[in-house]
């Protein structure tokens, strides 16, 4: 009779704001999988939506779901048929939680005859299963738990110079890296870059742009404390705070007037930054998904440039075609990432990304995950401090538990 499999804690969502810590059996990894002890999970806006509303847009949680998808950990066991992965027990890894089907047109490398099943656009896999998402059913659990089994080719080694929390930033950094590739960021040497939205993703876009050699990086947001972080910690060249409407200003009477006001604001921004009308930025990363911001992104882009739509928000928006199509300002769609983790981790370990080590602003134990979500929702910590990235589970696992072939375990203190 084999010993009972050990139990490990998981933060499980049962409905809106109904998060319960449950103890689940640790399963043996299957063929092609590794068992990973999760060391850190960053929380993101989509997790927050699920937590707060029990849904994210059209995707409703239909059965208990573990959230979290920005994670790093340590391999505790390897399943069968994993020898060619090059991974070993005790290896530190970042988890890429989107599991592509390996068979559809986006997964299979097209045209060059190779047998890769991670084609250049596998992020668009027709049958993608994303851990922590309620889009597909049965849902795949996310990383807000202590142990998870995961396909080995989606586990990426972490550089020695990179902590677990920094490695957990690989996920949002991968989004930004993917955006920079789709926007052909490296085609113009030393571009002038604009980032709209100075949340975690926007700040990573600023940091990446600096590392990639932008001549200037400008950040725009409504929140001055975020812009201060962008200036002081990331080191952007300019910031501009979008003012809240002044008291007594009549509300806009229709969408066309909102568009006009945004165009005027864009002209003001260009003037304040010392740029001429007709000039503008080479690349704009729109990281809010807010309609007005998307409009401004277009007005602020130079003719012949690109706006990367990174932020997800408004499903429809009024788009100025005279400012986009007629000026050959392309709107580039960005959905998650493909083949980005290795470069993201390399950048994280390189020291080239300024401000990375200050991006994790609040940390919570797994047992306090609901407190973590509340903090993220408020945008402010318990003492009013700025929220950039909230992380869960960091520094609370001090034991490395390894499962031996005879079913017993041994543990050792982690360094």
């Amino acid at each position: 009779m084999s010993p009972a499999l050990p139990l490990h804690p998981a933060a499980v969502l049962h409905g809106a704001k109904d998060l319960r810590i449950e103890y689940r059996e640790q399963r043996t990894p299957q063929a092609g999988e590794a068992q990973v002890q999760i060391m850190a999970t960053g929380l993101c806006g989509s997790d927050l939506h699920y937590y707060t509303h029990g849904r994210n847009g059209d995707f409703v949680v239909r059965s208990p779901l573990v959230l979290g998808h920005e994670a790093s950990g340590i391999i505790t066991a390897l399943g069968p048929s994993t020898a060619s992965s090059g991974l070993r027990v005790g290896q530190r890894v970042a988890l890429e939680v989107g599991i592509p089907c390996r068979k559809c047109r986006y997964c299979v490398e097209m045209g060059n005859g190779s047998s890769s099943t991670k084609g250049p656009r596998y992020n668009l896999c027709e049958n993608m299963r994303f851990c922590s998402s309620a889009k597909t059913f049965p849902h795949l659990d996310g990383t807000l738990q202590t142990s998870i089994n995961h396909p080995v080719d989606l586990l990426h080694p972490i550089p020695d110079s990179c902590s677990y929390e920094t490695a957990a930033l690989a996920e949002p950094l991968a989004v930004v890296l993917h955006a920079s590739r789709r926007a052909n960021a490296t085609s113009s040497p030393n571009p002038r870059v604009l980032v709209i939205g100075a949340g975690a993703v926007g700040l990573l876009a600023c940091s990446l742009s600096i590392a990639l050699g932008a001549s200037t990086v400008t950040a725009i947001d409504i929140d001055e404390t975020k812009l201060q972080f962008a200036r002081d910690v990331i080191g952007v060249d300019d910031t501009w705070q979008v003012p809240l409407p002044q008291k007594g200003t009549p509300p806009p009477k229709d969408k066309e007037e909102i568009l006009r006001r945004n165009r005027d604001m864009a002209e003001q921004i260009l003037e304040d930054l010392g740029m001429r009308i007709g000039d503008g930025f080479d690349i704009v990363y729109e990281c809010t998904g807010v309609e007005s911001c998307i409009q401004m992104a277009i007005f602020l882009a130079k003719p012949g440039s690109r706006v990367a739509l990174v932020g997800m928000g408004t499903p429809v928006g009024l788009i100025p075609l005279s400012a986009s199509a007629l000026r050959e300002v392309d709107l580039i769609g960005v959905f998650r990432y493909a083949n980005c983790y290795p470069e993201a981790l390399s950048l994280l370990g390189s020291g080239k990304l300024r401000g990375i080590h200050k991006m994790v602003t609040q940390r919570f134990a797994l047992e306090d995950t609901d407190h973590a979500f509340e903090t993220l929702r408020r945008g402010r910590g318990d003492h009013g401090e700025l929220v950039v990235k909230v992380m869960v589970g960091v520094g609370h696992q001090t034991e490395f538990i390894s499962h031996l072939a005879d079913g017993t375990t041994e543990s050792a203190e982690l360094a």
Partner: protein
Amino acid sequence: MAGGPFSAKPIDGLPVVDSNTAAVLYGPQDLRLDNRPVLPPGPGEAQVAVKVTGLCGSDLHYYIHGRNGDFVLREPMALGHEAAGIISAVGEGVTHLQVGDRVAIEAGIHCGSCRLCKAGRYNLCPQMRYAASAKTYPHLQGTLQTVMNHPAKYLHRIPEGCTYEQASLVEPLSVVLHASRRAPVKPGQSVLVFGAGAVGMLTCALARATGAANIVAVDIDERRIRFAVEEGFATAGHILPKLPRPASPEDGLESARQTAEKLVSEYSPESDGFDVVYECTGVASCIQAAFYAARTGGKVAFIGMGTTAAMLPLSSAVFREVDLVGVFRFCNTYADALALFGAGRLPGVEKLVTTRYSLERVNEAFEALKRGEDQSGRMVIKVMIGAYEN
């Protein structure tokens, strides 16, 4: 009378150029034939006896409204910008052309020194002056003249086997070629084209020449769709019902989504959309449908002009990585476009020239273009004004 007694090509050979007749717009629906002085070409210029000018939607807008969107006529302006002719004189310093050369006229003059010009994207040059456009002032006069001077670098020799009419079509073909560079089609891919006018059909023809397997043309005009399919431009055609104005923006988007769903399920059922969608109408409902009809990871190229702002389904862009690719005129296309004609790569395209008038009958020509049919009720796709035999 159009078609009929006219031969399919204008009178060849070098005409006498001691006088110049120009079709000059003075205001809405006020197009007059003026006598203009014949000037010798300046340094770097050449004088061209214009053989043929094709008429385009923007010329029509100026003719009807005296403006094209925001650009209002401020002084008398000769219309026309899709032209070809024969060199009648060369100015000082011009070595690559000689009298008697047949040339296609590239009607835009760019500065050559700004960042965009240096990057090879001179179509976006902020100093661009385009013939028959009121965007800049003084207006650069158009090609509906019997003789004109033009910077020689924009005069491209027409290869053997390419007619004047084909050379005039190089202008709209250039827009299409530029669009296909910005949003390329690979052999075997599927293409959806909104708008079966001259530009839409040239788009279909180029997609076919590139090896697209599935080319679907969409229009509200049944005759144009029939023409597109019968002449082999498109592999399939779809007639869109002319819908009433939507009750709300949401209704409009939903209607567009349904149109797209129908097009995809009927003509591209093996995918969730078309690889590339070329939007050639500028109409908001078509622009919206274009987005919905693009496949995940596909592109929508915006060629048509007419709507300054539209509600777009951004979720398509973000969740499906559908890109919106802008297209404004063209750059560095004339040589390739002429080569395509010279090599016979676009068979049947000359059939797009449905209607021909002499310069003296230019007002009739615009009326026919406006109605979409000539006085005999025949469909108009491309009208050409030229020195046709009578």
